[in-house]
């Protein structure tokens, strides 16, 4: 019998298997992507590289916010072998118990979740194969004592992180601070991963998206034991982390520092703005804190509770968020509206009769400029009455309604009663009442000027933030327009945000500003003026135009306020100083403003005595 034909059976068998294998391999390798994904899941780790945040410079080019390298002591539980707790504690300078406690704490910090697959039992998020920080944010000096011993403790390693560093201990309320993202933020923005930092206040928060830069991603081949071996495919898919752009601020850090020094021992604020650009030169909120106290989670954990519980509220950005009645500085706006409405002329005089409203002792103002100089309350009572009650309707109530709403429109055109579209968070709108507001209080047509007269001198329902007060000085300095006050001059190569390049105009014609400015000059330079202390070196080289204010405070001593700009002919700085419980505005607020102006314009302060007086004053009870 011949079996030679059987060789074909074997040949067919071999070829069939070979073909089937080739087809199968073609499916697995070329068509089906799921194995590639599975391989990535198994062997690759995406590692994010968080770039340092953008650095921040002041208007003179001084680096005010930079980044410093810190070190985290990381560990992966699965890789820890026979930890000699005693020796480890000795290296850290801890006790044995605190090491054990820290491990428990870390597990607790991660929280728990409900396992869907296991009867919704609570299970810890902590995973023993993942890295966690044993000690966060150590300085170079701190890690230097630990790092040389780490090879004795497998499973522990150091990791570099970058954190903020502030050149000056000032401007905390401008810059804000960073802290770890929470779960919600991670869900909302996929940029973040656990233990990333996010801007919590100030510029850091407002410009978070720009400052944080672009994360880089490295694809790393990992072993079955989760060791990193090498870059995947020699790193061709990796992306480079990009640091956020450099920021240039309008802030003058030396002026800021000086302002914070002057406000030491006082509650209140200073806001200085460059009128021609709307750039904020200084924004002092007092009391304040050293921004370095809020760097890193270790510091925040230590200092945040202290700061938040402080009754003087150092974390509260007063210039942006505190709403005060403006007091007499409001009279400037009343004058402007009255002039525009034509209900007075610069030559109008009103007697200082203290029947309806109190005043201090001074001669009656025969014209508008002197009324500003004296800050005459009855004068403005009369002026505001004319604005509100123009006799357009028979009923005094209906007439007041029309008048108030017109007045409200003017006030809105000064940027009052609304939040600025500024590059800050936590701004408040203040309050400029309109008819609807009073209708709610008194009922429709149940109120007239006499009911609401205290608004004429900036008391009662009217409320402004110090930023709005400073902006009033800008509008007057510019004779009718302003740019929205803002911090950031430029981001990288780009200029400021587009909304800061839009000129906002008040509803007052430019010519009406001249008598007001003259009045403000007289406040400072003419005898009987309330703001004589705002003179710089008792000279007229730099002419300061200002207006004092004393804000009645039913809870205690009155608040002092002074708003001004200088020099008169070419204004370079507009400023408001608001000091809580300091009494009359001319006594403390005006000289403080003058020191700020001198510091800004001449870079040094000659009148040491005036400076000393302000530095030593304290109005905290």
């Amino acid at each position, binding site marked *: 019998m011949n079996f030679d034909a059987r060789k074909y059976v074997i*040949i067919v*068998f071999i070829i069939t298997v070979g073909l089937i294998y080739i087809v199968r391999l073609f499916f697995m390798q070329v068509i089906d992507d799921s194995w*590639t994904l599975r391989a990535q899941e198994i062997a690759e780790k995406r590692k994010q590289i968080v770039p340092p945040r953008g650095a921040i410079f002041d208007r003179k080019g001084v680096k005010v916010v930079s980044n410093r390298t810190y070190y985290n002591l990381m560990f992966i539980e699965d890789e820890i072998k026979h930890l000699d707790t005693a020796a480890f504690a000795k290296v850290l300078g801890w006790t044995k118990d605190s090491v054990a406690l820290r491990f428990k704490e870390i597990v607790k910090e991660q929280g728990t979740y409900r396992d869907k697959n296991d009867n919704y039992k609570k299970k810890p998020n902590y995973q023993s194969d993942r890295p966690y920080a044993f000690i966060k944010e150590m300085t170079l000096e701190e890690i230097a004592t630990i790092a040389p011993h780490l090879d004795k403790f497998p499973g522990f390693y150091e990791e570099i992180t970058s954190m903020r560093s502030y050149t000056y201990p000032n401007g905390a309320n401008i810059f804000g601070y960073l802290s770890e993202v929470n779960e919600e933020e991670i869900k909302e923005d996929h940029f973040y991963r656990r233990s990333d930092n996010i801007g919590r206040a100030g510029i850091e928060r407002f410009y978070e998206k720009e400052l944080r830069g672009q994360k880089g991603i490295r694809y790393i081949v990992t072993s079955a034991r989760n060791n990193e071996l090498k870059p995947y495919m020699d790193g061709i898919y990796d992306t480079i982390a990009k640091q956020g752009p450099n920021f240039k601020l309008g802030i003058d850090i030396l002026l800021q520092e000086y302002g914070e020094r002057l406000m030491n021992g006082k509650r209140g604020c200073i806001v200085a703005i460059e009128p021609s650009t709307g750039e904020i030169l200084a924004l002092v909120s007092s009391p304040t804190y050293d921004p370095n106290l809020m760097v890193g989670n270790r510091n925040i954990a230590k200092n945040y509770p202290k700061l938040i519980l402080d009754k003087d509220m150092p974390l509260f950005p007063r210039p942006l968020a505190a709403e005060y009645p403006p007091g007499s500085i409001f009279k400037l706006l009343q004058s402007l509206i009255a002039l525009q409405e034509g209900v007075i002329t610069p030559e109008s005089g009103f007697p200082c009769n203290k029947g309806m409203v109190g005043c201090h002792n001074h001669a009656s103002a025969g014209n508008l400029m002197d009324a500003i100089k004296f800050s005459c309350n009855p004068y403005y009572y009369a002026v505001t009455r004319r604005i509100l009650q123009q006799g357009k309707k028979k009923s005094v109530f209906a007439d007041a309604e029309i008048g108030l709403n017109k007045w409200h429109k003017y006030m809105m055109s000064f940027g009052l009663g609304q939040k600025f579209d500024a590059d800050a968070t936590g701004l408040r709108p203040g309050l400029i009442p309109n008819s609807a507001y009073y209708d709610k209080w008194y009922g429709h047509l149940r109120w007239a000027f006499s009911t609401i007269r205290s608004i004429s001198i900036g008391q009662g329902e009217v409320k402004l933030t110090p930023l709005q007060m400073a902006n009033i000085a800008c509008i007057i300095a510019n004779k009718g327009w302003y740019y929205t006050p803002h911090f950031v001059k430029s981001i990288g190569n780009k200029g400021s945000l587009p909304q800061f390049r839009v000129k906002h105009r008040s509803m007052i014609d430019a010519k009406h500003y001249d008598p007001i400015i003259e009045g403000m000059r007289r406040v400072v330079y003419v005898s009987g003026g309330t703001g004589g202390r705002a003179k710089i070196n008792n000279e007229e080289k730099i002419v300061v135009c200002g207006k004092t204010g004393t804000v009645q405070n039913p809870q205690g001593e009155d608040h002092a306020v002074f708003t001004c700009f200088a020099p008169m002919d070419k204004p370079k700085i507009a400023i408001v100083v608001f000091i809580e419980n300091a009494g009359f505005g001319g006594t403390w607020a005006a000289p403080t403003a003058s020191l700020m102006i001198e510091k800004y314009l001449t870079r040094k302060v000659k009148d040491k005595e005036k400076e000393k007086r302000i530095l030593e004053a304290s109005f905290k009870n």
Partner: protein
Amino acid sequence: MRQGEKLTSHLDWPLLITYFLFLIMGMATVYSTALDPDHPNLFDYSQKYGKQVVWLGISLFLGLLVFLIDSTIYRKFAVPIYISTLVLLVVVLFMPPINGARAWLQIGGFGIQPAEFAKTGTALLLARYISSLNIKQQNLNSVLVANAIMIVPMILILLQPDAGTFVVFTSFLFVMYREGLTYDPLVLKLVNTIPGVKFKQTWVGTHFIPIMFAIVFLCIVTLLLSNNTITFSFLPGLIIPGFFGVILSLIVFCLIAFLFLRFISTKRERRRITTVIIIAFVLSASIASSVNYLFQGLRKHQKDRIELFLGLREDPNGEDYNRNRAMAAVGSGGLAGKGYTNASVATIESNHVPESETDFIFCPFAEEWGFIGTFILIGMYMFMFLRIIMIAERQRSRFNRVYAYSVVMILFYHLAVNIGMNIGFAPVIGIPLPFFSYGGSSMMSFSMLMFILLKLDSQRSHVLQ
């Protein structure tokens, strides 16, 4: 050796060159897989590639020895060789177990696996026995003796235990099939006990071996594929249910086989081929259908077992863990691969696929060279197998032919099972990929198989039998 004849005369160069190509590719893959960047020297003996170089050197030296010795000794000494490999298989059972198997003999610093050499011994004795038979002597007795030659080492290997090599020994069944030693006498004896039945031959008994293997293969593939749907990334709307895919593949294969066989066959055979293919298609389609139907009807825990065995189910701690990772490594290679030394899943260092330098060496190769590489690799094996079959068929000596068929079937089994477990077509049983896997015993035994074959072939004209 006859006078004046060169050592290399009548040498089958294509086979030898393919063998050397495999050695180079295998060495390169072992190097890439085991590469330690601190010791990049190929000849660094502290590294696996350094050791593999030594094994390779020893293997080639043994090959040279084989060439110097006259090929008649294999026939003469087939019995002592077989018995000595059996002795080693017995001795190894008294050795301390390594990884749960008593498979290693420690000689000096090196370990060898007698099971690897038992293949050669068995092949030689089987060749000797079958060649001594008269073609008409295919009786029950000769079938039993031939099977005994195969089964004795199999039992010893199972005692180690070494399931992989055990399975490989069934490749001798195909050799016997080729020589006409089938289970037909056994079947006949059984069938003819029925009163009134008097068969001279049964078709099932004669072709029992290839039929059984085809059925086993078809069942496994059906179960694997029927469980998931086939989708195409470039044709998002097209979803083919797995079982339909199996039937579709069967149709495609039958068509290809039909066209291929039509092309090579004579006119007279064409009708027969058509009939055979139609019958084969109907049979395999019905087998696939019934396997599929039976599987769907199974109870859940039975299904689980089978699914686990076939790797259709995630079992991170079980054996399937390895295969899943191996398949991920192979599949992630893509069309052109990740590049030499760029494997990320299957390297010794990353260790996601264990044994990636030995049993799973196909993984790093497939990962680094992609489908282009695996296509060429399988193509080369196919070429080698067909070449050996060609060599086998040109032998005048039956001894040589049986031996050559043993070689090709052993190599084929290794390829089918080894790559099968990398692509999910076979359960994980550890056997090396010929000429690729790291390891001295397998390298030496495959080289010996190959060189003895080459030597026998080069002296084929001397043998008159």
